[in-house]
């Protein structure tokens, strides 16, 4: 099967060029302040993008069919539209916002979820052959994916998930309900996208890699508990891909191993990621104006950000959810049952879940406050801002800063206002920490 016209390679080609430059720079003149493991990461990322580029040119299927491991086990190249949208900034993001406004698309929704639409519609990012969608709290992503499918006539399969924590509850009926849908999803994908075929051995292999990957992330999470925290704030938000989506999953495991070892060495030496003494430690929740480098600014003031609550990875740590191959009522799940279980990444549920994961992270990592970014258009997290403030105060005795903004749209950002509020909040956290001693 081939694409009628090969479009959407500009973003991927651009990413490849960036990664090649980074790798060349590291090999030629490595920055001693940066982890050595970064070379492995960029090499793995380059392989990921090169696989996409060559695969699309060769007409391989490209899309999302459930999680990464299932997608790859069906022979698809992994479509990472939303994550790629997150990486846009500067002139690119500006151009996409202009398209959004010109085309009359929803402007005041969450910017990180709407921006994939102009990226794909303009042909900058490849159009997928198949999409999977599911109900969860992020209604903007749900709508964006459905919009892409509808506008570009892409087959999409909707999986209906429960809102309660069926994976933690080990509810057999609910697991069966999801597993049946995944079987239908596979059949639908095989029907709609010639050339893709489910390979169960491949799925089992990839699920194992994902287990290893999450185990490494658990080690990293445990390292974050140290004071000072060795991991920089901007890395708290780095949303890595699961190992299964890489052409060489072992490479990303190797990267994690080296990275964890480097961070462990820093812990052994008492080295933190901030400048000077680590004065306070904060949780950064939801998203933020990363283009303004708030983490660099915080690090200069001795403020560590050991964790974020946005990354899906926290669901295994702060939400205490089971990882791949963990037993279910004492038995091993079949591969498709495991996929069904891992679809339980509803992060908010009726609100209490979202609040509790933030609280858990603060407790685990001994944090002194929460920066809760009220991302425009994120109805769930915005609605819970006040609850977060009250709960953090009541259960942990720590303050929360509610601060509004957008992640990618720089036109709405007021630097003085933003950093002024941040500075004020840091001084309050510092005072309160001192009075707790």
């Amino acid at each position, binding site marked *: 099967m081939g694409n009628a016209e090969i479009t959407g390679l500009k973003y991927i080609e651009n990413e490849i060029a960036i990664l090649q430059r980074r790798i060349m720079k590291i090999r030629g003149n490595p920055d001693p302040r940066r982890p050595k493991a970064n070379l492995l990461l960029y090499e793995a990322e380059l392989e990921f993008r090169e696989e996409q580029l060559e695969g699309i040119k060769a007409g391989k299927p490209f899309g999302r069919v459930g999680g990464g491991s299932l997608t790859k086990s069906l022979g698809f190249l992994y479509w990472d539209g939303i994550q790629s949208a997150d990486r846009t900034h500067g002139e690119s993001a500006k151009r996409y916002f202009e398209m959004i406004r010109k085309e009359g698309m929803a402007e005041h929704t969450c910017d990180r979820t709407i921006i994939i639409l102009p990226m794909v519609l303009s042909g900058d990012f490849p159009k997928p052959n198949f999409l999977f969608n599911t109900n969860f709290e992020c209604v903007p992503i749900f709508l964006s994916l459905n919009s892409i499918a509808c506008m570009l006539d892409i087959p999409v399969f909707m999986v209906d998930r429960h809102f309660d924590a069926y994976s933690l509850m080990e509810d057999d009926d609910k697991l069966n309900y999801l597993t049946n849908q995944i079987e239908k999803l596979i059949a639908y994908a095989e029907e709609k996208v010639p050339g893709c075929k489910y390979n169960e051995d491949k799925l089992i292999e990839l699920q194992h890699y994902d287990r290893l990957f999450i185990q490494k992330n658990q080690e990293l999470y445990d390292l974050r508990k140290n004071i000072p925290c060795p991991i920089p704030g901007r890395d708290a938000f780095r949303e890595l891909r699961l190992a299964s989506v890489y052409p060489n999953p072992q490479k990303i495991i190797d990267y994690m191993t080296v990275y964890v070892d480097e961070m462990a060495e820093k812990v052994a030496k008492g080295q933190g990621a901030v400048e000077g003494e680590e004065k306070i430690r904060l949780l950064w929740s939801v998203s933020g104006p990363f283009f303004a480098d708030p983490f660099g600014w915080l690090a200069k003031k001795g403020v560590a950000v050991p964790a974020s609550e946005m990354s899906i990875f926290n669901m295994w740590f702060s939400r205490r959810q089971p990882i791949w191959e963990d037993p279910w009522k004492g038995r091993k799940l079949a591969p498709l049952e495991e996929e069904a279980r891992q679809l339980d990444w509803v992060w908010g549920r009726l609100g209490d879940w979202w609040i509790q994961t933030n609280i858990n992270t603060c407790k685990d990592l001994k944090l002194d406050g929460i920066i809760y970014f009220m991302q425009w258009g994120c109805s769930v997290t915005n609605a819970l801002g*006040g609850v977060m*403030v009250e709960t953090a*105060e009541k259960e942990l005795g720590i*303050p*929360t800063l*509610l601060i*509004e903004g957008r992640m990618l749209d720089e036109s709405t950002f*007021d630097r*003085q*206002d933003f950093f*002024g*509020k941040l*500075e*004020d*909040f*840091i*001084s*309050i956290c510092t*005072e*309160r920490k001192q*009075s707790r001693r």
Partner: protein
Amino acid sequence: MITAGIDLGCEWAKIVLWEEGKILSYVIHPYGMEAISAVAQRGFDEALTKAGLHVGQVQSAGVVGSRRDATSLASDLLTESICCARGSARLFPQTRTIIDLGAEKCLVVGCEEGRPLRSARNDRCAAGTGRYLRMVSKLLNVPVEETEPLSQQAEKDVDIETTCAVFAESEIISLLHQKHTPAEIIRGVFKGLAQRSYPLLLNVGLKSDVVMIGGLARNGGLVKAIEEVAKAKIWVPEEPAIVGALGAAIVTWERHRG
């Protein structure tokens, strides 16, 4: 030990000289068209003269406010929540909530024993600040200092529906054409300002005693409007504009007392 607190806001420089429990002198100066650094220096010199001191007797200085970077007089760069909390608690030891309404800001701080617990402030918007009142008073041709007695003449207020200070101008002109009096409009503006600050009060947890500081706290009509909306008694210091500077002097004293 004598310390200085310098509060450089958007329009005014406030300087306080402090010695362990006592305000030795204070000065309030508008910037006008002068450089902020020059006004700060002049104010500092004047405060020294008023207290009968020379500069060598001041052991340290702290500066706070949105324009704090404009002066090199102070070594301690401080934040507003802490200075408001310290200064207010010095004057009213039972302070639990502070409203600091200035030319460009509305800052609300929840505190206890002079320590800030949490704060909330307006986004950069004139609607809930002194700028808005100044715009209205100019439009109505009423000096800002006369808005309070004028508001008392109104038998009722009028609702200003727009939340934007820029668009409020055209709405007020419409109200004048509808024969509403300036007194009624001023009362409506006070009510609007009070309503803007109320969500911030709820955000930090409104607890008594509530203290209002900043230049706008001198306006009894506005204070009354906030009391009505918040349903709480509000205490106002004798000179509310200097509380931030007082807090800065106290914080810098704490840091350097050894």
